[in-house]
């Protein structure tokens, strides 16, 4: 198939199949895998028969264990954190591994209505036949309840508070009443919800106390060590490169190291050696952005350069990622360039390339 991006359960179908074969532990009702196997799928590693599972989440194993354990209880899972800390990514893979289906997805926006979560009506049918099950438009949530699968809600906190509250009955009573038809849809065992929310964004709706109580919260942190972050960027870039069919050479580790260093330093407000204090920009500087900077660099190198990624290719994306606010961030970025980048002997090319881009 020629789709731009495959669903997790399609892209990693082979891995899931192998893990299912090897999985000896007990599975909760309607789960495709045992909890241990789900954690293994996320963290990667070698199966007993030598099959290599690629890591989906690079970071603390304990966090993934908590997330999976939560889904076996009747509490829903809320993945919380800065933009770009792999919340949606983890949610997608959890759903793929547990239910074999990551598509039961409600995208949360300020305009998400109750109908998008509970059910809607096909008005033509409603008028023609009157209220009947036939005239009902089901939502991913309702489907997940009926089939005992995992439903996903992206950006939960962007949904307005009154719409959020419709989730309370679903999460605590595990039922979806349809008063118009005098019936209800009761969730089948195996149903659960994974929601993601970020705590940096502007214009978010705080969760109400009642709803909070229905979620176990796992905060996904920014990568702890430089090594971990480089690993993430490298891993993702090479897999995306395949998907986007970029002809460029594999990105040089050196360039990735430099990008990650810049991102980490600006995020932490201090240089990697801990000696120099620097200002932090208003942008989030997440790992996901580092990945996209490397990717756009790759694309530039492939289409306009010699196919090998270098400082010039990265500079444009880098500046765009850092400078989100044209006034404040520009000051921050220039200071960083002059005081940190310029002084590093082997970073001369980065400095020159960034200087050339006039903001």
């Amino acid at each position, binding site marked *: 198939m020629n789709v731009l991006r495959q669903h997790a359960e399609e892209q990693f179908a082979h891995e899931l199949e192998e893990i299912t074969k090897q999985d000896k532990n007990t599975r909760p009702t309607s789960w495709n895998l045992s*909890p*241990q196997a789900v*954690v293994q799928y996320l963290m990667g590693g070698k199966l007993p028969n030598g099959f290599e599972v690629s890591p989906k989440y690079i970071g603390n194993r*304990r966090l993934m*264990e*908590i997330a*999976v*354990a*939560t889904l*076996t*209880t009747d*509490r829903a899972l*809320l993945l*919380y954190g800065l933009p770009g800390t792999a919340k949606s990514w983890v949610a997608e893979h959890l759903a793929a591994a547990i239910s074999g289906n990551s598509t039961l997805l409600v995208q949360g926006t300020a305009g998400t209505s109750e109908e998008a979560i509970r059910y809607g009506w096909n008005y033509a049918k409603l008028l023609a036949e009157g209220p009947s099950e036939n005239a009902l438009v089901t939502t991913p949530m309702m489907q997940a309840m009926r089939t005992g699968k995992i439903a996903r809600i992206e950006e939960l906190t962007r949904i307005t508070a009154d719409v959020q509250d419709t989730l309370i009955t679903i999460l605590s009573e595990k039922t979806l009443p349809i008063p118009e038809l005098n019936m209800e849809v009761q969730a089948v065992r195996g149903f659960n919800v994974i929601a993601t929310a970020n705590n940096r964004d502007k214009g978010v709706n705080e969760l109400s*106390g009642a709803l*909070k*109580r229905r979620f*176990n*919260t*796992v*905060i996904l942190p920014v990568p702890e060590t430089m090594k971990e972050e480089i690993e993430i960027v490298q891993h993702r870039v090479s897999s995306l490169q395949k998907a986007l069919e970029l002809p460029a050479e594999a990105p040089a580790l050196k360039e990735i190291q430099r990008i990650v260093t810049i991102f980490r330093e600006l995020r932490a407000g201090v240089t990697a050696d801990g000696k120099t204090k620097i200002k932090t920009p208003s942008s989030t500087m997440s790992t996901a952005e580092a990945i996209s900077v490397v990717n756009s660099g790759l694309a530039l190198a492939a289409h306009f350069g010699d196919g090998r990624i270098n400082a010039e290719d990265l500079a444009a994306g880098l500046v765009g990622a850092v400078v989100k606010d044209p006034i404040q961030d520009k000051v921050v970025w220039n200071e960083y360039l002059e005081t940190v980048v310029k002084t590093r002997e082997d970073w001369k090319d980065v400095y020159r390339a960034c200087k050339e881009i006039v903001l």
Partner: protein
Amino acid sequence: MPLTILGIRHHGVGSTQNVIEMLEQTQPDMVLVEGAPELDSIISWIGNEQLRPPVAVLGYNIDEPQQATFYPFAEFSPEWQAILYANNRQIPVKMLDLPLAIGFQQNKNEKESNIVEEPNPEDSESIVPPPIHKDPISYFAEIAGYENSELWWEHHFEHNYISNSAKEHFDAVMLMMSELRHANIPSVLDEENIAREAYMRDIIRKTQNELYSNIVVVCGAWHAPALLDVDSTAKADTKLLKSLPKTKIKVATTWIPWTNQRLSMHSGYGAGITSPGWYDFLWKKGKQKDFAIEWLSHVARLFRKKQVDISTAHVIEAFRLAETLTSLRGLSRIGLLELNEATQTVMCMGDTVLLSLVKDKLIVANRLGEVPDELPKVPLQLDFEKLAKSNRLALTAEKKDYELDLRKELDLNRSKMIHRLDILEINWGQKLYARSKGTFKEAWTLAWKPEMYLSLIDKAVWGNTLEDACTKYLIDTSQKSQNIGKIANNIQKAIPAELFVAIEFLLKKIDEVATISADILDLMTALKPMVEVSRYGNVRKTDLGAIRQIVDSLLTRICIGLPNTCYGLDDDNSRKVFEHIQQVNEATRLIENDELTQLWFDTLKKLLNKEGIHSIIQGCTCRLLLDAQEMDTEETAERFAWALSQGQEPSFSAGWLEGFLKGSGVILIYDHVLWNILYKWVAELSQEYFTELLPILRRTFSHFVPNERQQLGEKAKAGTIIQSQELTTINENFNHQRAESVLPMLETLLGITRL
């Protein structure tokens, strides 16, 4: 002669439970517990109702109390329970380790030899880096796939207490340790351990010779294999023990209250624990089936107390998550890590901030032990405890704030006590700024640390009561000193502590020293504390007349001596004097005695006109006089111009400038006359002088705040400033009559009444 060796982890709960079981099984007629033999007599207190853990045995060198070791015990410590078991059944107990005295002696010898070796620090030794030691147990932990050895040990030996399997437990420990030792895996304490284990074996042999037939030894797991064979090692041990240093050090021991926080300290017993509160809970409740639920409801209660809404449903959910996590990880019992993760995920919205509260209050649990009153104590310690009780100051490990109103009897006594302890260098109280103004208020934060007992014992030689000890300590330290600053400082401390005998002595002493002292600088340092005392001390019902006199005489002496002291100083010394002058200047403002203040300004003027005074000091005095409005701006400008004029040596000008501008350049921003002089001076400097002076000028200007520097820079860009503002105000057609008619109204508005 059966010899049962029980290898334990210090403070390990599972070890303790197994030790108890094993003791019941073997019914020994002698128990040997790891610890210095000097502790033999003091451990008989274990079992006394008033000795409540956490407590520690403090063993110290009688002649040098600072040389000391603590042996901390919690209720759940295997050592504690083993001794308790023996004491309750009248079974003899002895301690088993190298005597403290020998250890102290070794330390001393090392220190002395270090001093000798110092001149040659880069010996061949430093070339060989010390081998990096790894915790031996971590080899097992790594094979089992654990992150660290603590966790592995905890899961396998402390957490999984299964009743009626104590023998298997200790066999397993013994086997494991023997394997590690056979594999020659080094431990950090190797060298020390050789002597310690030899001594331990020696004690076991002696005990066997006393015909005890059923001996149980409780010791750290690592030592266990070494104690198995006591017969074939006898000869080698005797030889080794002979090589140990001879010592005459006398060691005294006493019980002191300990805190949970400090159970993690590495002292005496090498190992510490990080979660004593959790262990304590496990010890008391661990055998119950639903201990995890109880723990979580403790957590919930704690949160509720802090106004965090936590419902019973939270507890249920947290428990379920913890349980699921445990089974997901293939563990047999819920551990602290799982409980913490469940708490964080369910109750804290994933946040770690609230979890730190659980850590402080439950996992570590700030607790302070108690010791019986009738314990042998030094008199000073007794007096201190009596005072603390009567002043109702609790010796808690937690920080507690007090706001004292010194007009009240109790509060005054409390303040006195804290100040007195401060004199003995026991910093129990941290002074805070009292919120309300007024000198009768004092705010303190008190936090008791067990090692403060050590300081008390250390200071016991000075006297048997706190008052006595402080007085003698102050008098003694001042007696030896000819330094007025130090004595003045002591007075400053003695007044809030109300040590009248000491104050009287110190006043006499300072007067005496001041009269004969030729060092004006010394007098100058003493002035400020003395002035402060005279101003603020009066709340304390102290006789201040004497202090005022001393202040007066001090200042008079300074005024007389200062011009000569300043004569012919070099750069560095001038800067020092310069700082002293500033201090005295500040102090004179506080004295509020016109006559003396005038005397001081006259002295400054003298300095200004005297030949041979360093330019830094002259610049400084000029500035001080200007600030005090003792010199008008015109005269200042004149002097400024004079100092920077062509004829002066450029280095003189630079020094003068440094003194004048020290601290702030604001004056240059607002006074255009001074600015123009400076600008011209810099512009006319020849190139070689300029490079020479640059460092001095830079030093002067670099002390200004960045904002000031920037403004000065802007000004420098503009060059000399023509005094345009002043010119514009001159108006030939000015009608004075009209202008004056506004004044009465202005006065009414501003509330100024004409005199």
